[in-house]
């Protein structure tokens, strides 16, 4: 097996074995979904979609935000500040391998998370959609979630382990709430409706909602997501190559 695939496999395993993954990516979204799906009656319409479908998308996006932020931020921070990254620099490992394997592993982990959410939706709450919609929604969410992978890696470059953990948790909850994943923006005051339009969380979910609601996917959704993705990647690249020579006294 090539070095890249081996590292990718290990990164996937590291995610799956992690307790934080279980809590933030599976337990929270699935738990909230089952708790709140009956809140407005499952046949209530939100944004032209049945609430049980609408909220399934909300919680799926909430799950992948969790994977991207909580997994990556802390891991990157530890590797960067506690010797591992330096050590790896002394090996012949290609410079880009660390970040490309992490991103590719996140795609797999997101697919697992979305898969589990959809299974819960379909079999526990009897959400029904044509196969094409399931697949389109799933794929959009899995790949759109790369924005949060990039954000997680960026946060991991900002500070040490504690700082990364705190910052990742704050951002995780803030962008989830502000993006209308917990409470649909249709019932929020106008200020929050406008705020949501600036959130990558809302924009990603809106792509999936459009696919379900037979609406055309809005270019503005794709554009805002792409802008965030490019912004986060550039920032992370800039932060990670900043000269940072700390004098160590042996």
């Amino acid at each position, binding site marked *: *097996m*090539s*070095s890249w695939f*081996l*590292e990718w496999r*290990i990164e996937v*395993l*590291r995610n799956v*074995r*992690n307790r934080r993954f279980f809590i933030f990516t599976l337990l929270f979204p699935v738990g909230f979904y089952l708790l709140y799906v009956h809140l407005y009656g499952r046949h209530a319409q939100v944004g032209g979609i049945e609430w049980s479908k609408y909220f399934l998308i909300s919680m799926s996006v909430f799950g992948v935000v969790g994977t991207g932020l909580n997994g990556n931020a802390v*891991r990157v921070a*530890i*590797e960067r500040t*506690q*010797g*591992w990254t*330096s*050590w790896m*620099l*002394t*090996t*012949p*490992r290609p410079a880009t391998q660390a970040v490309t394997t992490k991103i590719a592993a996140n795609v797999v982990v997101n697919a697992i998370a979305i898969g589990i959410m959809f299974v819960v939706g379909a079999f526990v709450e009897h959400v029904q959609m044509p196969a094409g919609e399931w697949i389109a929604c799933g794929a959009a969410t899995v790949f759109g979630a790369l924005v949060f992978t990039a954000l997680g890696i960026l946060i991991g470059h900002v500070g040490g382990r504690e700082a990364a953990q705190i910052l990742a948790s704050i951002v995780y909850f803030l962008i989830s709430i502000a993006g209308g994943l917990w409470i649909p923006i249709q019932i929020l005051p106008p200020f929050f409706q406008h705020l949501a339009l600036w959130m990558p969380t809302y924009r990603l979910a809106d792509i999936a909602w459009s696919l379900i609601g037979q609406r055309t996917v809005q270019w503005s959704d794709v554009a805002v997501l792409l802008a965030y993705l490019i912004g986060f990647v550039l920032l992370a690249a800039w932060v990670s190559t900043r000269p940072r*020579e700390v*004098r*160590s*006294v*042996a």
Partner: protein
Amino acid sequence: MVSTAISVEHVSKRFGAVHAVDDVTFDVAPGTIVALLGPNGAGKTTLISMILGLAQPTTGSVRVFGHRPRDRAAREQLGVMLQHVTLPQSVKVKELLAWFRSFYPHPLAVDHLLQMAGIEHLAEREAVKLSGGEQRRLQFALAMAGDPALLVLDEPTTGMDVESRRAFWDSLRSFVHDGRRTLLLTTHHLEEAESVADRIILLKGGRVIADGSLAEIKAQAGNRYVSFIAGPRCSNEQIAELPHVRQVRYSGRHVRIETDRPDDVLRAIILRDLDASSFEVSQGALEDAFVALTELDDGVERRGVSR
């Protein structure tokens, strides 16, 4: 074959006004075991960082087997143990080994690596859950994964107990001392350096203050010791009155005299018929030379300032 494993030429590293490393030059021949020693803050870690390509010299150049340290060709021949490394979470020992092996063109077998580090029984365990000493041994196995021609070990025995330290050096000796590998190490345990190193480079204040074989270093320190067991009729005054005595250390009845002329001290003891037995003349341990040479350097600095 390249004639030098490591070549350090007029290397300096400044952090603001501080000279962490100040015009250091040395070559290391392949197959040599070199101990880089010095008091805290001497610049050992900074120098090693530059040899590993983790830091850039302010001036001067470093080559590893003729390559720049950041070149892949250099890194393929390099195995490293850094001082403080947190291993990645949720990864098993054998997975880490497979991971490291995958970086190198001619890696050593996993079983061989496990056995070399004495961690065969830990292969299925999660790496971060091992004890400090076990993690250190695992890191040694990882450093050896690529069958390196140059092994750089920065304080390799930190966190190990006495027993694992001894086992570590034993295995290191058998796997490194075959003349194929070059080894550069730092350690706070001077007796460890003394037992493995062919060559000692002593660093202080960022400069090389001594460089040579163990015997040469001890000779440069110029210390000679006359030791004996003092009998009941031998008084401290009699010992203090001996010629050429620089310092006397008593441990129970055991007396150790530091002198630059051991023959004259011995002759005086015999001629004055002191109550003494079990004579021994030595150059002392590396630690004595280390202390003498670093203090000597302090003296030079002080004189330089007062002038």
